[in-house]
Every structure is written in C-alpha cells, then in structure tokens.
C-alpha cells in the first residue's frame, strides 16, 4: 500500500488514520530552531465527517486511503439502497442510507452528485450545491408579502423542511442551497 510522509501532506490528501479514511484539511509545519519538528494537521474523517486535530512527528508516514470522488447521477431509492450511476460508463453503485446521510433529503432523482468511493464502495454523497424542489405542504401564502420578514416552514417533495417567505404556496418550485439548507428563490419556470 502506498504511504505518504509528512513532507507530502497537503490539503485534500486522502490518508488512513485509526482505520478510517480521512482527508487532510490543513497542515502546518512547526519547529523550534533547536528541537523536534512536528506537523500539526487538521483532518476530516470521511466516514463521520468529524474534523479532528492531530500532531505528527515530522518524517512519519501514513497509509494512503483509496478514496476517489466520482460524479454520478442519482437514479432512485428502492427503500433499502440509494442507486447511483456513472453517466459515461453506466456503472452503477448502491449506497446505504447511512452513507448518503443528509444528502438524502435533497434527492428526488436525476441529480448529479459527487459520490466518494472508498475501496470502490460508496462512502459519502455530496448533493449538488443547488436543487429545485416543489413545495408539498406549507401554510397558505400571504399575497403581496415580499418583505421576507418572518417566514414559515415549508415541506418539500423530498420531505426536507426549509424556512421560506410568507408568500410561498403549495406547488411552488423553490431553489434551495443544500450547503446551508436555506431557501434561495422561487425557481424560474
């Protein structure tokens, strides 16, 4: 298995740490003029999403993690697995709801996602930054109120609930930012 020394550490590098695949976020070289050199690293556990700090003695090695990000289209959810396909090759992957995580609430089908594969198996799913979804339930719209003040919850066709302005009605198609979970605008139809 390939290894990386601390001298190869950089943002984005995928390594194995405590048995889990991780991505390096930040790497700082620390060394007193007369003393041991260290690398202080911020690293994201790709399974849990948690960010931890870890210090390495400079010169140490970490095993490389076989992790690749692949663009895939979300096909459908069969109740047990979420199915994705690589458009170029038609190769399909099934991912458990646990690995799809929060992305699931933005996916209705056809969306292009980034599926992170670890040893060839889906590990995590990143939805598109913006999705367009139909409102299936919300309090009746207040016509003319475009102040944006206040707001109310609205349930979308995927089950996600977002905070929307008062003028939004059932049946409206909304543009939502999946990174923040916030309403952006009504979709232009």
């Amino acid at each position, binding site marked *: 298995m390939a290894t990386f020394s601390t001298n190869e550490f950089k943002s984005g590098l995928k390594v194995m740490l405590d048995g889990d695949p991780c991505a390096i976020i930040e790497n*700082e070289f620390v060394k007193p003029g007369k003393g041991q050199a260290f690398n202080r690293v911020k690293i994201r556990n790709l399974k849990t999403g948690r960010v931890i700090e870890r210090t390495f003695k400079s010169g140490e090695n970490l095993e490389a993690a076989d992790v690749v990000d692949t663009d895939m289209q979300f096909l459908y959810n069969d109740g047990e697995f979420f199915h994705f396909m690589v458009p170029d090759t038609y190769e399909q992957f099934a991912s458990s709801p646990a690995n799809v995580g929060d992305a699931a609430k933005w996916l209705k089908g056809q969306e292009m996602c980034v599926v992170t594969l670890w040893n060839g198996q889906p590990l995590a799913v990143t939805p598109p930054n913006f999705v367009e979804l139909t409102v299936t339930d919300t309090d009746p719209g207040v016509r003319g109120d475009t102040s944006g003040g206040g707001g109310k919850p609205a349930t979308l066709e995927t089950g996600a609930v977002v905070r929307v302005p008062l003028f939004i009605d059932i049946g409206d198609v909304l543009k939502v930012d999946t990174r923040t979970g916030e309403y952006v605008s009504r979709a232009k139809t």
Partner: protein
Amino acid sequence: MTEWRPSAGLEALRRRAELLGAIRTFFAERGVLEVETPVLSVYGATDPHLDSFCTRYTGPGAAAGRAMYLQTSPEFAMKRLLAAGSGPIYQICKAFRNNEAGRYHNPEFTMLEWYRPGFDYRSLMVEVDDLLRGVLNTPPATLSSYAALFAHHLQIEPHSASIARLRDCAADHGIQVSASLGEDRDGWLTLLWSHLIELHLGGGGRPQIVCDYPVSQAMLARVRPGEPAVAERFEVYIDGVELANGFQELQDSAEQRRRFEENCRLRRMGSMPEMSMDERLLAALAHGLPACSGVAVGLDRLLMLKLGAGELREVLAFPFDRA
C-alpha cells in the same frame, strides 16, 4: 504558466534594505566588527534536529570529490575567530536547513549572528532588546524563565516532570500525537511548548525573552549547576514567533566533545545520516575561547514582524518554491 515573479512586494524589499542598513549602523556604533565566514564546510551539523544540505566539491585537493555541507549557522567558524582574538564580531549571512519549510520556515534564510566577549548572557539579552527597540520600535522586553512559563501555563515543572506527566498533560489539553514520540522527553517538552505555550509569548508586539532551559536542551550553552541545573540559554519571542536564540557560550572543549558524541549517538539511534564532529571548532576551544555570549536572530522573521506580514514568503523575494 511558469511563476517568475517575486512573492514579496517591492516595498518589502526596500524595507529589508533599510533593516540591513540599520543593523550595520547599530553594530558599527558599538564597535562590533562585521565578518564573513565560509558557507560551505567539510563539517555538517551533528545536532539531531538539524539536517544539513550536502553538496560535492571536485577539483584541486579533492580529485575524487569530497562531501561539503552548507552551514546551518555560522556559529563554529565565528567561534574560531573569537578564539583567534577577533574581539566582538557579527555576521549577516545565509543559513541552510534541509527539511524545514512552512509558514515560518524557508530552507535557506538570512541570519544575523553576533558574539560579545566579556558579556554574560544577561548583558547580551539587554543588547538584543536594544537592537529590537531600535529596528522594530518595540517596548522593553519582558523576561521569564522556561520553568516559570511551564508552571504558569501548564502547572508543570519541566526540569523534573516525568514523561508520563508530560504525556498526560498533552492528552488533557486535547493534543493527539502519534505514538512514535515514545521516551523522547525533550520531544514531549517541545510538543507542549510549541502547541500550548509559544503562542502566548511576546503578545501585543512586546518581546518576551525566555531563559534557563533544561540541561538536555543546552546545545552549545554553558550549564549552570544548581537545583535544578539549567542551561544558560535564551530565546526571544514576539507575537508567538521565535526570533532569536542565544547562549552563554560553552568554552570547555572536553564538554563540547561529549555533547557532539551524544548528538552522534542520537543520530545513530534515529537512523539519521552520521556527521563528523567539527574538529576545528574543538581545537579552537582547546586553544581557548574567551568568555562570551552569542546570539542568532532570524532576519526574515524580524522583517516579517516589522511589516506585519503573516508568513515568510511575503518578505522573501523568491521563497523556496520559486528559487
């Protein structure tokens, strides 16, 4: 596109020239002689925490070629001048350290180093402070011992604390470190120092001088016996950045040889390249080094602080990745 432009602005280069001028004036007014010594030497650094660049000379006197090392500091050559009776001397030169690159490290950097026969290390601290006040406009420096800082920030007595105690302290502060630090007591001290103490030193731009290091970190400093014995060594910090390292210089040739031998032992243990000890320095010490103190200041870092820059590359015309 090939990156050919400097990473430092022209203003930074102008300020560097001014800084060099101010330093030369400072020493000229005090009767300290500027010297130059070789950057290339047949001896590299034995210190296990320094990694010398190695190159090869081939030519008259070495038909088959001979390994030569780029200096990690001009210390040994300058001590030979002192032993030869030079009197007070300073040097502004490039120093080279392999394996060191980061926000505050460039593998080649500019060093100011000076020696004061007849000064004890406390007198030299005052002179360092004078220089900083002159070129950086800093307020007067504060002084703390290494032990006092450990006690204040971590409630630890660094001269006597066990490795287990240091390891627990790191864990208590959420520092997760790879296991390979093992039984390296100074490694643990350095870990705590660099993660938990250093950032507090010299806050608000007021220089903080740290003195009296553990004997195990004496390097080339004299040891003062006592309970505990301490190394007569000091460092200067501003805004959490290590700026200078000074010693009450070790004069004892036999003790210097013992320390070199210990360095070599540690290098073998750590499977590091073996380095011959500098016999010319040892001969000079045997001849007699005047009682003196010396200090090295990282000039790129000094300029960085002067300009309020966040990293070295802002003050280097061409940092290593553009060299």
